[in-house]
């Protein structure tokens, strides 16, 4: 399938799929949205990172929450006024939050700590002031502001707060490592030295940062990042390499990259959307090869991404002592790989490669677990790890509870597949448009 046909399929969306698939997607999307109803502290809008007891809030999950409310309103799952109040509570909390950057604050320079206490909104788990997670939070704020465009006092305040919080972010300060944006900063040790290089999920961060009129990223920062790209031919497919599937998906939840090209993609006669389609195909090719001999892998069972996995003792797999990695960013083809599949990464592939994603989803949806779609909503499942939980029966290991990022991606990417709502909304965000242009993007809807 060439790029054009992939685009055509994605654009056609639900019209192309069978009623049973439509029902499956409707069920998955609606039940994923329930996470945000159950896990949000209504007073401050903070959303738990996971459904597990004692979980702190994740600012990225809050960004997803702010983005799913427009979907919920459009689909009639909650009233518009209810959604507005939820968004407002969130924005009011962040605007009034402690920005001192101390070990017990909420953020600094417009950025926020990755994890916050759900009740107090203060830093949790000694987490880092996170550039990417702040970007996911901010794009959620701006998405909500783009949707709630009414003239009511509440919606007006919502838009003002969202813009203020965006403008407050000192993106330029985060340019640290040879001008590229640093992944994070901690009051205890300053900028983190994680070598956040190579293609990753940061497109949306650079678009936001470069579009800022107050503290913009420099053009050199985008150059410093993209110079670390690797264009590879793997399994006979040319693509911009990144191992974990979520890297090829996160920014696409908001930005429609079909036809948009920066200098790199012009050189390669490709675009980031098409690249994600190819990355999806490569995941499937890897699973068909199944070089490490994991149970279940095949043409309809793939999806190595960031997510929860078993934390059990090593066991023999295909004659080899296999370790299990717990929460990890799994990737193709170099791993880490311990046989764990992340369902949400397959859902997010719907827009890129609907034919193979639907085949995989059908199988995953009906896996022998305690509830329909449980394997899709769970942060990961692993048919190799020899743990027989009461919940999963004989289906191997499955992650307990649900993670907010997964549910957010499920709601947003199914919506993009069905209607393209998020993609249409973000086209209206002036700073995103400006940032993309400044990064050298042209074509497509730009």
């Amino acid at each position, binding site marked *: 399938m060439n790029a054009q046909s992939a685009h055509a399929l994605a654009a056609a969306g639900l019209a192309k799929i069978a009623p049973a698939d439509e029902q499956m997607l409707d069920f998955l999307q609606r039940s994923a949205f329930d996470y945000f109803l159950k896990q949000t502290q209504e007073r401050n809008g903070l959303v738990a990172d996971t459904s597990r007891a004692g979980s702190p809030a994740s600012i990225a999950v809050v960004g997803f929450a702010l983005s799913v409310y427009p979907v919920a309103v459009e689909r009639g799952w909650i009233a518009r006024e209810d959604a507005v109040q939820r968004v407002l509570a969130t924005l009011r909390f962040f605007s009034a939050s402690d920005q001192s950057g101390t070990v017990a604050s909420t953020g600094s320079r417009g950025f926020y700590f990755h994890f916050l206490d759900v009740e107090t909104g203060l830093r949790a788990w000694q987490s880092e002031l996170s550039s990417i997670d702040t970007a996911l939070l901010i794009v959620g704020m701006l998405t909500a502001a783009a949707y709630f465009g009414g003239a009511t006092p509440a919606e007006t305040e919502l838009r003002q707060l969202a813009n203020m919080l965006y403008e407050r972010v000192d993106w330029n300060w985060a340019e640290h490592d040879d001008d590229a944006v640093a992944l994070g900063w901690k009051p205890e040790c300053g900028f983190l030295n994680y070598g956040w290089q190579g293609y990753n999920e940061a497109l949306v961060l650079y678009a936001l940062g470069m579009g800022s009129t107050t503290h913009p990223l420099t053009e050199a920062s985008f150059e410093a990042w993209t110079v670390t790209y690797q264009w590879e031919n793997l399994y006979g497919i040319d693509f911009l390499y990144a191992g974990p599937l979520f890297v090829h998906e996160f920014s696409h939840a908001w930005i429609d990259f079909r036809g948009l090209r920066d200098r790199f993609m012009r050189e390669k006669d490709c675009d980031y959307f098409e690249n994600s389609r190819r990355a999806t195909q490569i995941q499937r090719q890897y699973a068909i090869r199944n070089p490490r001999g994991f149970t279940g892998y095949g043409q309809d069972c793939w999806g190595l991404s960031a997510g929860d996995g078993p934390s059990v003792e090593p066991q023999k797999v295909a004659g080899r002592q296999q*370790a299990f990695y717990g929460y990890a960013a799994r990737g193709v083809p170099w791993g880490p790989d311990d046989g764990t599949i992340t369902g949400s990464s397959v859902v997010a592939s719907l827009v890129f490669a609907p034919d193979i994603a639907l085949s995989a989803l059908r199988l995953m949806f009906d896996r022998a677990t305690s509830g329909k779609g449980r394997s899709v909503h769970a942060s990961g499942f692993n048919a190799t790890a020899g743990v027989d939980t009461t919940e999963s029966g004989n289906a191997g290991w499955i992650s307990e509870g649900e993670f907010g990022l997964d549910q957010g991606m499920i709601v947003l990417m199914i919506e993009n597949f069905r209607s393209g709502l998020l993609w249409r909304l973000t086209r209206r965000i002036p700073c995103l448009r400006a940032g993309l242009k400044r990064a050298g993007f042209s074509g497509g809807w730009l």
Partner: protein
Amino acid sequence: MPSTPFAAIPAVVQALSPEDAERLSNVSPTGWRNPKPLSRYHLLVIGAGPAGLVAARAAAALGAQVALIERHQLGGDCLNDGCIPSKSLIRTGRLLADMRNAANFGAVPPAELVFDFRAAMLRMRRITARISRTDSAMNLAREGIHLFFGTARFNGVDTVDVDGVTIRFKKALIATGSRSMLPDISGLPEAGFLTNETVFDLQVLPKSLLVIGGGPLGCELAQVFARFGSRTLISHSEPLFLPQEERDAAQMVSDALARDGVEIHLNSTVTKVHMEGGKKVVELLNDGNTATTRVDEILTGIGRLPAVQGLNLKAAGVAYDAEAGIHVDDFLRTSNPRIYAAGDVCLEHQFTNTAEASARIVVRNALFLGRQRMSALTIPWCTYTDPEVAHVGLYVKEARRRRIPVKTFTIPMHDVDRAIADGEEDGFVKIHVREGSDKILGATIVARHAGEMINSISLAMVTGVGLRTLANVVHAYPTQGAAIRQAADAYVRTRLTPLMVTLARRWLQR
């Protein structure tokens, strides 16, 4: 030349093991009488490591009068404290790893795997002694090289003092190599530590060992000692080991070390060491958090600094600095046109093959009006972890920085039949070409035998063979090296345009 260079067999050698005695009698014969210097030498070489030996021999073979000055032992770090000893131990480590994995191949390993550290070290000494025979002092003398043991110090633009004797030269080569760089860690000197030189003198396998620094030698030795059975930790200040190498390669080394049981501390610096109860107590700082561990030994000093001290380079008018070493142009000439440099003392890449290649350039340029450039060389290198990491030419990042459009053909070893049969699937062959052409810019190979495999890429690059031609080179099957042809095949497939496919189909259906 004296009739015999020896005054007497030194007593100290007789007290050593036969292997050490043989090696020392070859590389540092006590009682050696320096020859009476000629009035002037065509080429004076300071340092008899890989670069100095190659230059002295090549020049002497061409009829030049050559003086070679060595302060310590012939062969340099490579033979005595580096490549050869470490590779000998790496081989033992591989065997142990294979024995532990024997059941996977249908061989029943012994109930208890017994490892004899002394025997492994003895084998290592036997190997270095054997290799030292080729470059022995006597052999060099027989080849007509005037070999001086002593400390060289320039006392003019064309003269060197060797322990009070002045030697004149037309041209000189500084090939003094490099020395261990010790990290500045509070309490480390008092607690004591091993370096790449002293680690090979260990008599007893340490129960626990901390390796500070995740460069090539640090990673190699951490894996070896873990395989020997020492509790081994490695700390590295960067987010990935092998900072020069591409991320995927470095990550694979990290994964391999972890599989062998090495405790990995990335993004970590050792801040303090002190002794307590006979153990070295080490404090490690990571992202503002301090962790403490106790070990029997610490191995460090695995970074290298150019050996420029004590040469009195100012007197010779040779520019240098402590970190980059002697400043040379692309012809390896220093700021004194009579004097050249080669090897670790002046080059960024501190490898034996690089030192030797640079020395050959110096002989041509210094003695025969050559204009050969260092930058024109294609030099592969390899880190001998398991799997090995080998590289030649440009890295993708370098190419992109230079705005060269680059594309990589990647063959995972899990797609290579022989690697699957061998149970050696961890790794890849990545060949970087200029986008739109088959011109090879560089390659990285991670594989159990990557060091052997990289040579055919070097050959292709030096001879200007592109991927299109490589695809026509029939490789023995099944071999792991066939991965290179698979990458070339992948290239050829990308050249099949839809039009070509259509035309081919029409032709076949005519």
